[in-house]
Structure formats: structure tokens, C-alpha cells
């Protein structure tokens, strides 16, 4: 829970933060030390037996040599984060099955003819996969080589700077879904349809974040750098680019922990299982794998080769 903002970079600070996660400025003390009017030599006493206690490197805390009790020291709180916003499920299990069937029918010529009819859903698992969504404002400096203005070498160096605003950038944290699958699902979500509790599909699994807050912030910072790099590409003149480097100075960086609805389906065709993902809000978005009709591919390949050979012999 945010308790204020960093005075250097305006990023939000959590109660347990010792330093700003973005710019490392020490966070202000939430509780002021009690006022000491003049210097005093204070002895730390054991809560159990009252003996004087000293810090032990072995247990990394003050430990009483008489009764062996260990005093707790406030340690930086670095919890594993929880989803705080749940996008609603708006399609049902039956609609998800239908979406899969319709999708199988659109897979094209090189799939088995009976794929749509013979594919049988073997399992359907509704779930909320998790990810961070961040908003950021940052100054980005870039340097790169491109073919613009090149001389004897095919490359010429260029540099520049731009201000970047990034809104609603999703960084997947899912273990169940591939990062690429998550990225393909994201554009189809209606971010306005959300609630603070799981809604729309009772019994659906809610994935857990698996990294601690400090690690999450590093992942988000790297993602911001990735966004900056892809935007910087638009500023580099020329058509070919290499050695694109960016330095990012965020002035604000705020993030939310979201849960996104989706269905993971397993379907059987013949004796083999295939996996597909159906979007939890938009049934037109289906991802996954489908069997290939190798017979058709071989037939078409042979036909093409035969035609080429025929044309070649006619020309000769």
C-alpha cells in the first residue's frame, strides 16, 4: 500500500520501503525516533531474563548468552505480491468450448479436414493469470548505428533524446501461460471491466505472483527499458539499425497487480493432446496449437515440384 511518493522521482513508496525502488533515495522514517535530550549509554536487555544482550553474527540478531533467547530485529518487509484488480470473466465455459471449435475451423488447408468435428475437449480450466501493469513517464537517451548517412561503412552513428509516456503496459508474471501468449491476449482485455474480487467465474483458479516485491520492481524496470528501446527505434533515422542502446531516467513509475481471465483447454485429436488458450473476455481471441495434416503438405510439395519439373522440361 502506497504511503507517499519519492521526493526525487515521484514514484510511490510502500510503508515497508527503506529506499525508493526506482531511484534509491532513502524513504523517510515513518516513525520518528523518540527524543533523547542528552547522550546516554543504553544497554539492550534480554526480554526473557533481563541480562545485557549483544548482537550475534551467527543468528544475525541480538542473542542472550544466558538464556539463549533471540531478539527480533525489524527486517525489510519484501512480501510476495497479491493481485489487487481482477478483470471480470465475461464468457462462460460453454462459450469457451464453442470458441475453440470455431477457431479449429479457421486453421486452414494444411489441417486435417475433420479437425473441427473430431477434436474433443479433454479439459477446461478457467483461471486468472497475473501480471503487473505500469504507467511511467521517463526521459530516454538513445544511441545507435543505422544506414542513414553512411559513407564507406554501411553504418553511421546517431544519437538522440525523447520524452516517453507509457500507459497500461502489461508485464506478465504468469507461470501457467507463456509470456508470448499473455502478450497476445492483452490487447483484447477491457480494462474497465474490473473489480477488487474475482468475479464472473466462481471456482476459477487465481494464479499467485511468485516473486517478491523487490524482484518485481526490477522486472518492471527492465520492461520499461524494453518499451523505451522499442520506441527509440522510431527515432533512429534509416531503415537498418544495430547497436541500439538506451538510458532511461523515469520521473514517475507506478504499477498495479492485475489478474486477467482466460481458459486453458486441452483437446484430443486422434490419440494426441493439444493445448489452447481462450480469452476470458473476448471469444474471438484463441491461441494454441493444432495438428498438421502432413499428408496434405507432402501432396502439395510433390505437386509443386512436379509442376516445376514439367515447366522446366517444356522450356528445355
Amino acid at each position: 500500500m502506497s504511503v507517499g511518493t519519492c521526493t526525487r522521482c515521484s514514484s510511490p513508496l510502500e510503508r515497508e520501503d527503506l529506499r525508493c525502488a526506482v531511484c534509491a533515495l532513502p524513504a523517510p522514517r515513518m516513525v520518528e525516533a523518540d527524543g533523547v535530550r542528552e547522550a546516554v549509554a543504553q544497554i539492550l536487555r534480554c526480554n526473557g531474563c533481563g541480562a545485557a544482550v549483544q548482537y550475534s553474527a551467527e543468528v544475525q540478531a541480538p542473542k542472550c548468552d544466558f538464556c539463549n533467547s533471540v531478539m527480533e530485529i525489524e527486517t525489510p518487509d519484501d512480501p510476495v505480491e497479491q493481485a489487487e484488480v481482477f478483470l471480470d470473466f465475461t464468457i462462460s465455459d460453454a462459450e469457451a468450448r464453442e470458441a475453440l471449435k470455431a477457431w479449429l475451423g479457421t486453421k486452414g488447408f494444411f489441417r486435417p479436414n475433420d479437425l473441427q468435428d473430431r477434436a474433443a475437449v479433454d479439459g477446461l480450466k478457467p483461471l486468472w493469470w497475473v501480471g503487473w501493469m505500469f504507467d511511467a513517464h521517463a526521459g530516454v537517451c538513445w544511441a545507435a548505428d543505422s544506414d542513414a548517412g553512411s559513407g564507406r561503412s554501411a553504418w553511421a552513428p546517431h544519437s538522440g533524446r525523447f520524452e516517453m509516456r507509457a500507459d497500461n503496459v502489461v508485464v506478465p508474471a504468469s507461470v501457467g501461460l507463456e509470456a508470448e501468449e499473455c502478450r497476445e491476449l492483452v490487447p483484447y482485455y477491457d480494462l474497465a471491466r474490473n473489480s477488487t474480487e474475482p468475479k464472473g467465474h466462481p471456482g476459477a483458479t487465481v494464479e499467485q505472483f511468485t516473486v517478491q516485491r523487490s524482484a518485481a520492481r526490477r522486472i518492471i524496470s527492465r520492461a520499461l527499458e524494453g518499451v523505451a528501446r522499442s520506441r527509440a527505434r522510431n527515432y533512429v533515422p534509416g531503415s537498418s539499425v544495430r547497436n541500439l542502446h538506451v538510458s532511461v531516467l523515469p520521473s514517475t513509475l507506478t504499477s498495479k497487480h492485475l489478474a486477467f481471465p482466460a481458459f486453458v483447454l486441452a483437446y484430443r485429436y486422434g490419440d494426441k493432446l493439444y493445448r489452447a488458450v481462450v480469452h476470458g473476455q473476448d471469444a474471438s481471441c484463441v491461441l494454441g496449437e493444432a495438428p498438421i495434416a502432413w499428408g496434405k503438405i507432402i501432396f502439395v510439395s510433390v505437386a509443386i515440384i512436379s509442376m516445376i519439373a514439367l515447366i522446366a522440361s517444356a522450356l528445355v
Partner: protein
Amino acid sequence: MGAVSAAVEAALDGLSCESCGAALNVAAGERTTRCPYCASPAVVARPRSAGEEPTFVVGFVIPEEDARTRAKAWMRSTWFVKSGFKEADVTDMRGVYLPAYLYSASARVGYTASIGENYTVTETYTTTDANGKSVTRTRTRVETEWRSLSGEWSAYLDDVVVTASRGLHNEELEAIEPYDLRALRRYTPKILSGWLAEDPSRTAAECATMAREEAVQQIGRRVSAFMPGDSHRELRYKTSFAHEHGALVLLPVWVLAVKYDPEQPAVRMVLNGQTGALVGRPPRSWTKVTIAIVAGIFALALVIYLGIEA
């Protein structure tokens, strides 16, 4: 630097032991003491106006025996040292919380550089083949075209640590860094109890200058990696810092002394109390070094001689 007041220079007296009431005298520049009568460890709490309170502490992780073992192993692994050093005992050993500044800032850099872009040149040349005939062949070589580039680089700098103690030089601290700053804790006297803890003996301005120098070196490495091209030269950069902040942090350090010869000064070793990294200057035996060089030259000469004979 953050609000930093002058280091507390004067010894503190008029303090009494909370346990037995005996008078305590806290040495200048120290934050902890031990009662000479009842051996109770005490941490001095001062009014906020008397000096800067540390912001963070990194607790000791390496216990005394472990630190001693690491130091002995390091001594045994040193080469060409004076007799007796490898087997000498550690004569003095102290666990000290070293005052240091944790510096952070935002840096904006303007740079100019010459960027090398490689290209391949194909050239023809005339040579003589195996039959002694003159033939024309082609070969390729890589040339570099140098182009000038100027631009900006900006980023937040964090985790620049410089000593605030005159007792331990910044080079020594750099040699035992890094500290794992994920283990930072807010300052609490609890962690200091029973250990020596020093107050800063360098001024905030001095520490800020050292920190900026270290930051500029760090920036140099990062800006160098930022350069495009196949190579670069004549990189020049000018840095301006903004939003600078220095937080006083106490870092765990084992300081060990080894007296290997009564006629010689003790050798000092400094060990990172969190990671065990060690720095020291072993007493070199120049006689051993000379013998090794002469023996090496002799062995090389022998090998060359035998090679010629063969």
C-alpha cells in the same frame, strides 16, 4: 549529501553504566562502549542535534572464528612473503561498524566521441605461385571509418558507497565491496550492541567529493558501454548531478592485525563482515622475489640452450 552535521570529535564523559552505575568514558568518534566493571555492552544514544544518526545498518554475518579462519587461509595462500608471516597468529581482531555514505543522485551526461564503423575492402595484389609464376589474387581487409558523435546519457545512480572514516581508506573499502545492500536495515542500536561502532570522522563535503569521483568512474564505464559502432575512441563526457543524497550507513568490517616479526609493524587486514571478502598488504620478501626472478631467467636460458643444442 543529506543533512550532515560535523562529526562528534570530543570524548563523551559523564555517562554511567545502566547496569552497575559505574562511570563510562566513550572514546571520541565511537558510538558503543563496554563497562569496565560489569562488562555490559552499551550503545550511546545522542540527541538528534548532536550529530547525524545513521540511516541504515548492515549487520555482521561472518562470526569471529570464521573471519579468523578466512584470514589465516589468505595468509597461507600469499607468495613471496617474509618468513614467519604465513604461520603468524592474528594478534588483534576487532569487529567494527564502519561509517560510510550511501550516495545516490540523478546524473545527466553530455558526451562526444569518435565512433569506429568497420567496412571491408577487397584489393588485388600480385604474388608468385608455387611454380614461380606471377599471379594476381584478391584479398579482403577490414578498415575503420571514424565518425564523430555527440549526445546525452542520463540515469539514476545508486549504491555508490564511500568511507566516512579516516581509519579505513576508500581504496580498502572498495577492495572488500560489494556489500549486499538488500540486507540493509533501518538503523537500530540493537544491531550495534556488543560491537565497536565508529562515528564519521570525515566531513560530509569530503565524502560527497569522493562519492562523486566514484560515480564519475561508474558513469564512464556505463557511457562507454552505451556507445554504438564497432569501436570508439576519444570519449569525453561532462556530468552534472542533481538530487544528490548521502545516507549514513554502518557497514560490518573485521579489522585484523598480524605481528609476524617483533621488529616490524603489524600487518593489517580488513575483511567484509557480510561477505568475507578480504584485503591486506602482505610483507613482501624482496630476497625471495629476486631469487625467483633469477631462477626463472636461469630456467629460461637453460631451455633455450637445450633447444639450440638439440
